[in-house]
């Protein structure tokens, strides 16, 4: 009616006054609002999801600072907002899938809301949120939760980027120095505990693929550990996910698959923060979802293309790369060498096994550090292969490396940064530093898929906190045990850093499947790879 009126006015040449135009616009709005009956229901859905995310973040029992902050992961927050909006779409997809359980929903299908309406809804929700803020000391907005006496500052998150909690730190509480680091809550061991943090308001097995659920649990429990292992297990799980994926008829395969992928990645990140290797693999997959599937392919074809891509990635960038590295590195190992290794690395193990099979005579000293004591696994594997080994703890490094008895140090890497620094298991930096001082060359074995464009100068900016209880051994003394376990009242903060940064000046050479490179060549490789991607 309004459009016609305006057009009639245009034709007739009658100029509408601004007041008239405003009246027309308002009339239009009223009509549309009356027309949609499901708008209220959609408001309800949104408020319900927001409420649930509110309750999941505000813990009822007292926890340590690190635990509180740990629940507010950057990635989790974005998914909370996106998932909230996706709630409608997910429901419709559930109804259409055969494999997943049908979830009863009282909400009917809703027509698309106009932009203005959605904006209006968001405004009203924001208003309710800010109204609720003084009464509810902990809001869904990102703040580190310090002692209750302190005021929590309302920091509004920007649309899709979550600002880290840094800057809002109490001077008195030194625990918050590491409050920005993500930490696994060791009490979260089962799926019902892990799910709420993602902001999902559905029963556990209805929306997430069981393979991913299992994988998440394995990560959370530390059963799958190590950069390569985590990446490969992720790749096979995602393959299964893609194979079982069914696009609902009104959705496009690519978009829907990307949404599903984001959802599952959010869950996995909640179980254990994603490794650089995993991130790069997912980035590779996402790139191929966008680039490799022409619009007109059938679902079956598209899925088989993607599965092939993933398998090719795993095969080339991980398995074959490892073989190439072991062949290149074996050239550097000479007869009668004594090689020092630290902890467990699948690549270094491959290198040593290959060199042994090639007939080179060498000895290995395995250095190990608490709390993980992964060196024991390395030791076992090497001995069963037939290599003659010694075992030492990290405290005896200077004795080992300064005496001129060690000829080389071989270390693996979690990731290599763009400034040439190596992220590896905590303790590696020590080994590299002492080796440098003792004039022993340090060789890092790392596949190129672990190269990251991130730059980091120290180990605190970004790291992962492990279970602090692992550090505290009380050896049966009851008083000590009591004091150590009751952390919230004690002044003790156990800091269990998982990774550390080895500066590039301590590293002599990086061995990749492309050859032997200096540490400073990482950005060159990244540049070459990115040009290959864009081709």
């Amino acid at each position, binding site marked *: 009616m309004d459009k016609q009126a305006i057009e009639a006015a245009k034709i007739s040449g009658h100029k509408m006054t601004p007041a008239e135009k405003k009246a027309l616009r308002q009339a239009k709005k009223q009509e549309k609002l009356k027309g949609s009956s499901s708008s209220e229901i959609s408001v309800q859905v949104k408020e319900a999801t927001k409420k649930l995310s509110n309750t999941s973040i505000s813990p009822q029992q007292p926890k340590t600072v690190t635990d509180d902050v740990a629940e507010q992961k950057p990635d989790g927050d974005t998914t909370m907002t996106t998932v909230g909006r996706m709630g409608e779409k997910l429901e419709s997809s559930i109804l259409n899938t055969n494999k997943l359980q049908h979830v009863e929903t009282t909400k009917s299908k809703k027509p698309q809301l106009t932009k203005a309406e959605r904006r209006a809804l968001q405004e009203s929700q924001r208003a309710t949120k800010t109204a609720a803020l003084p009464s509810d000391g902990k809001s869904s907005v990102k703040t580190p939760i310090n002692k209750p006496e302190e005021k929590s500052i309302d920091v509004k998150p920007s649309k899709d980027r979550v600002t880290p909690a840094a800057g809002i730190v109490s001077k008195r509480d030194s625990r918050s120095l590491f409050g920005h680091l993500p930490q696994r809550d060791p009490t979260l061991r089962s799926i019902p505990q892990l799910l709420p943090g993602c902001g999902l308001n559905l029963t556990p097995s209805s929306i997430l693929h069981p393979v991913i659920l299992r994988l998440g649990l394995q990560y959370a429990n530390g059963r799958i550990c190590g950069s390569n292992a985590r990446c490969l297990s992720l790749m096979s799980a995602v393959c299964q996910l893609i194979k079982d994926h069914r696009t609902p008829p009104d959705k496009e395969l690519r978009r829907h698959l990307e949404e599903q992928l984001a959802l599952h990645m959010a869950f996995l990140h909640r179980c254990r923060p994603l490794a650089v290797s995993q991130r790069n693999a997912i980035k590779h997959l996402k790139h191929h979802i966008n680039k490799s599937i022409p619009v007109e392919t059938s679902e079956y074809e598209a899925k088989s293309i993607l599965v092939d891509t993933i398998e090719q990635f795993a095969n080339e960038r991980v398995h074959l790369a490892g073989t190439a590295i072991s062949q290149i590195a074996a050239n*550097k190992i000479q007869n009668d060498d004594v090689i020092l290794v630290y902890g467990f690395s699948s690549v270094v193990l491959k290198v040593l096994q290959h060199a042994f099979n090639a007939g080179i005579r060498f000895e290995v000293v395995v250095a190990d550090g608490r709390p993980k004591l992964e060196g024991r696994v390395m030791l076992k594997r090497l001995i069963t292969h037939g290599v003659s080994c010694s075992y030492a703890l990290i405290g005896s490094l200077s004795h080992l490396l300064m005496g001129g008895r060690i000829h080389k140090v071989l270390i693996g890497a979690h990731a290599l940064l763009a400034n040439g620094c190596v992220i590896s298991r905590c303790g590696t930096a020590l080994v590299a530093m002492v080796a440098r001082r003792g004039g022993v060359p340090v060789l890092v074995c790392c596949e190129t898929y672990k190269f990251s464009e991130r730059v980091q100068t120290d180990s605190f900016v970004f790291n992962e906190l492990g279970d602090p209880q692992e550090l505290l051994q009380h050896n049966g003394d009851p008083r000590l045990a009591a004091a150590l376990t009751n952390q919230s009242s004690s002044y003790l903060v156990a800091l269990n850093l998982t990774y550390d940064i080895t500066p590039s000046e301590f590293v*002599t050479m990086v061995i990749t499947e492309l050859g032997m*490179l200096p540490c400073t*060549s990482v950005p*060159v490789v990244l540049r*070459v790879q990115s040009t290959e991607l864009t081709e």
Partner: protein
Amino acid sequence: MSTTEEFTSSSIDQTRIGGQTVLEYYAECQRDETKAVAVAAIETMIQVMEKSEAETLQGLVKEMNDVIDILKRTDGNVTSIESGCKLFIRFITLESSVLLENLPFNQCLNMLIARGNKFLGEMSRARLKIAQLSAQFIENGAVVLTHSLSKCVLEVLKGAALDGKRFHVYVTQSGPDNSGIKMFNKLRAMNISATQILDAAVGYIMESVDLVLVGAEGVMENGGVLNKIGTYGIAVCARSSNKPFYVVAESFKFVRLYPLNQRDIPCNLKYNSSVIKENCGDTRFEHPKIDYTPPDLITLLFTNLGVLTPSAVSDELIKLYL
């Protein structure tokens, strides 16, 4: 036997008999002492290509690799022969494979020879380019320390002298073959003021020099260099006295080697091949010809690709080889 007769025989005989003439031709090329060793080697390889009877590209590459092996058995600067020739092969075979597939092999061969000559031309001019680039680093009144005989460094110093700059050069004697004395004589012949010092006097003289300028026999993948024995000591001394340490090298000396330490340098580069043969591989009692200077002791490298930091060498090598 005439040259044509030799090259018409079967390929196996060709390598053996051709080996004689290859070396002779190589010796001829080397008669011009101002030529770089690698340039002479590349001229030899172009000659082999012209006389080649190979039917396929693979066959040609195999022939050239055989020639490289023969040339490496000479007593000389083996590092730059290997690097220069490998780069040469890489340069000429980088031609678009589509073109090579469509044309008959004779025409391909002519194209490759043309590319080879182009490469040779660039390499022969490399030293002049380097001299132009490095001129700005030698200021008026500078005191330069150099080590052993390097044609590249001579070219740089000649360029600076022609520019009208007044500077003084300290040259080490550089045993065991005393090649530093030759360098000293050449500098005096160019009317550049120079002083001959003992190798042992480097520590003494370091505080009086402004910069150290050395050549290289090979530039490693990480930016380190292989050069006449004694260079590493000079580099350590320069670092300790905070003097800049410059290396002058042409780009054909970039080689895909990556030694971890002095022990890790391949044997055939450290010792003359005749010496290795005499001792049947046991070189524990022989004195090495070259040593390895790690990249953190080097300030800058002057090459015909530009003035590079040691970490940029890897970038250039990746561009060339990957």
